[in-house]
């Protein structure tokens, strides 16, 4: 029997809500799967789809972007920009040969430590079920 597949997940978290929510999960000692690696960004609106695509190209099995809830953005409207751009990116993922469930855009506030752990847990489980991602080479070959 081989070991269960452990996906590698990159999380882009906005500094004001979701990164603070992840901090709160820590302060409250709420456990969640260790697979996520968090990259702090000022705002979910800073997450260029290029960054998410770069993570997939480099071999990430899942990418999650978390920002402030709609209406709560520290920069007033950054998360709306994120939503518009990343929803479109999400639709294009399959075209790139990446299963849609490997990407998630969601909202976690600074007071939602429990929700952070829950979202990350769910996402990790979903990606684990999908198994390892096809290598970029395979994706490129498939498209030829």
């Amino acid at each position, binding site marked *: 029997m081989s*070991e269960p597949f*452990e996906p*590698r997940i*990159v999380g882009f978290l906005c*500094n004001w809500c979701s*990164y*603070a929510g*992840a*901090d*709160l*999960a*820590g*302060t409250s*000692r*709420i*456990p*969640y799967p*260790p*697979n996520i*690696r*968090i*990259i*702090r*960004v*000022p*705002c979910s*609106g*800073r*997450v*260029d789809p*290029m*960054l998410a695509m*770069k*993570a997939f190209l*480099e*071999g*990430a099995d899942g990418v999650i972007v978390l920002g402030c809830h709609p*209406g709560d953005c*520290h*920069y*007033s*409207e*950054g998360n709306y*920009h994120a939503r518009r*751009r990343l929803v479109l990116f999400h639709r294009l993922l399959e075209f790139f040969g990446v299963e849609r469930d490997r990407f998630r855009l969601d909202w976690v506030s600074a007071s939602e430590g429990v929700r952070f*752990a829950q979202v990350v847990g769910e996402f990790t489980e979903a990606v684990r079920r999908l198994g390892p991602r096809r290598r970029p080479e395979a994706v490129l070959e498939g498209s030829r």
Partner: protein
Amino acid sequence: MARVGVFVCHCGSNIAATVDVAKVAEEAVKMDHVVYATHYVYMCSTPGQELIQQKIQEYQLDRVVVAACSPRMHERTFRKATAQGGLNPYLMEQANIREHDSWVHADIPVATEKAIEIVRMAVAKAVGLAPLEAAQVGITKRCLVIGGGIAGVQAALDVAEAGYEVVIVEREPSLGGHMAQLDKTFPTLDCSACILTPKLVDAAQHPKIKLYTYSEVVGVKGFVGNFQVTIRRKPRYVDEKLCTGCGICWNSCPLRPRVQEDGTVKGGFPSKFEANLGRRAAIYVPFAQAVPLVPVIDTEHCTWFVKGGKCGLCAQKCPRGAVNYTQSEELITEPFGAIIVATGFDLFDARALGEYGYGRYPDVITGLELERLMNASGPTHGHVLRPSDGRPPKTVVLVSCVGSRDEKIGRPYCSVVCCMYLAKHAIMLKEHDPEVEVYNFYMDIRAGGKDYDEFTRRAIEQYGAHYLRGRVSQVYERDGKLIVEGVDTLIGRPVEIQADLVVLATGITAPEGARELFQTLNISYNQYAFINEAHPKLQPVETNTDGILLAGCATGPKDIPATVAQASGAAAKAIGILSKETLIANPMVAEVNERECVACQLCVQVCPYRAIEMTTTRRGKPVAHVNPSVCKGCGLCVNACRGGAINLKGFTDQQLVSQVSALLAEPLAEVLDER
């Protein structure tokens, strides 16, 4: 090659209990660019910080990575330590191995490997960091207060007392706001005007305070320390400098209201200050203690304006020649360092709830109208008389939560003050006429303030007001009486009361024009057009725009003590800004690469702070320019830029990509196999 030093913190046992800190340091030193790595029990302690400073010198480090708690906790501390070690503070990167690792994972090998990866990502980012210099900007030592109610006046007085110039902009002809309309205040039953008007006079006479009444803010440019505000001064048609407020004009206006022999009033026009229960002339001051005591002309009704130059009696009679029919609107622009928004509230229009019959039956009135009826300087000289027949009511029904806590009309919030002012109304009605029966339909009694619950109990126990827990379903007229149908949920029975007067506790809503003003100010507000605080708990008097502060009901319903406290809080914040000689801006801002910029202006459109303006290079090429003092560093423009000409310092594309690459260079599967 960069020379990176890695400092791993134990945080006592907070990190060290689940992360093998020695192993993290051992692995860190093997990473590219890392020349030194160590671990220490408390990196944030004085010896911990000194360790960083020492090693920067000893190993000639040019980047520092501190693997410890969240940067939201100690980023400043470690930046300072880095700076004291002789490096630019922005060459420090913090790796969060506590909140994001040791506190959420129990398994030591898993947590240790995760810590190593987090450090690897931080090192990769650190290598790409560039030194940043914070810009310094000068400050205009003047404060603008928008709104001349109790919040604005209190804030203005506090800032002026600290020695700074203040301008109050009030859109009505007089200072005072809603508090000036109230009769008494709960729970002390102080006369509202008696405690308010001395403050208005203080503000008007203060050498540091300038009043722009009958004026509105129409444009705001700039940023904290350096706002340029455009104010529209509406014409009053009376020269403020010449007028003495003698009253000859409004007493000689042919359209003035006149008391008839039977006591009724004929002529004049409904007075907004008197909640439309009283009447005024076409040239008027809103109330006797108005500040400034200078009338305005109502051009909708004044014969001179309506009939093109006829009448002119007020100008003839004015002993100072202050009436000037040719005055015109004036736009003035002034510089300010800080802005306090104290725009207050309006009352919910009870006509939207037809079941209560407001607007249909003259004896269904609002709480504010009752305030005016009870006030000695009000339209009935302090006698509570029914608007329909001028007779004193014997049975009064008070209805709470009209336009508050009501999902179906989109106002789920509590208006905070109504429970208390209804208790006050119950007491005052009994004080005016001990024979009157007062019924109060309530949902819950919310009396959370100091002495508030005692006050409500007094209304019930000492004054004998009948409190009925339940809603009113409808109000209608039958045989000259108002029939109030409701339910008393405590006895579980429908109730019908034959009332002479029904008082609706209309809730607090955002004032007209609030959204437009807040957009002009570029501050965020919620779905009810109440301003969002920068942080609802820890920054309650600040907005998301630096230098713009808040006081009073502009952020949501509030009573007078809370408003005054908040106004003084906002004033303290304003003084904090104005007392500095220069402001240090956040250096982690966006920057345009002028060579790459094609002046498409997409960045200008997405910037929530209007920090980007178009300019031209020395060679005349049009390019975007980010004002570093206005930019808040969100990075929206970076993504909007199609040519990749904008980058966000501290979060550049290259820095973020290097974090991704560093993480994924090491296969996680192998890491887990070793276990």
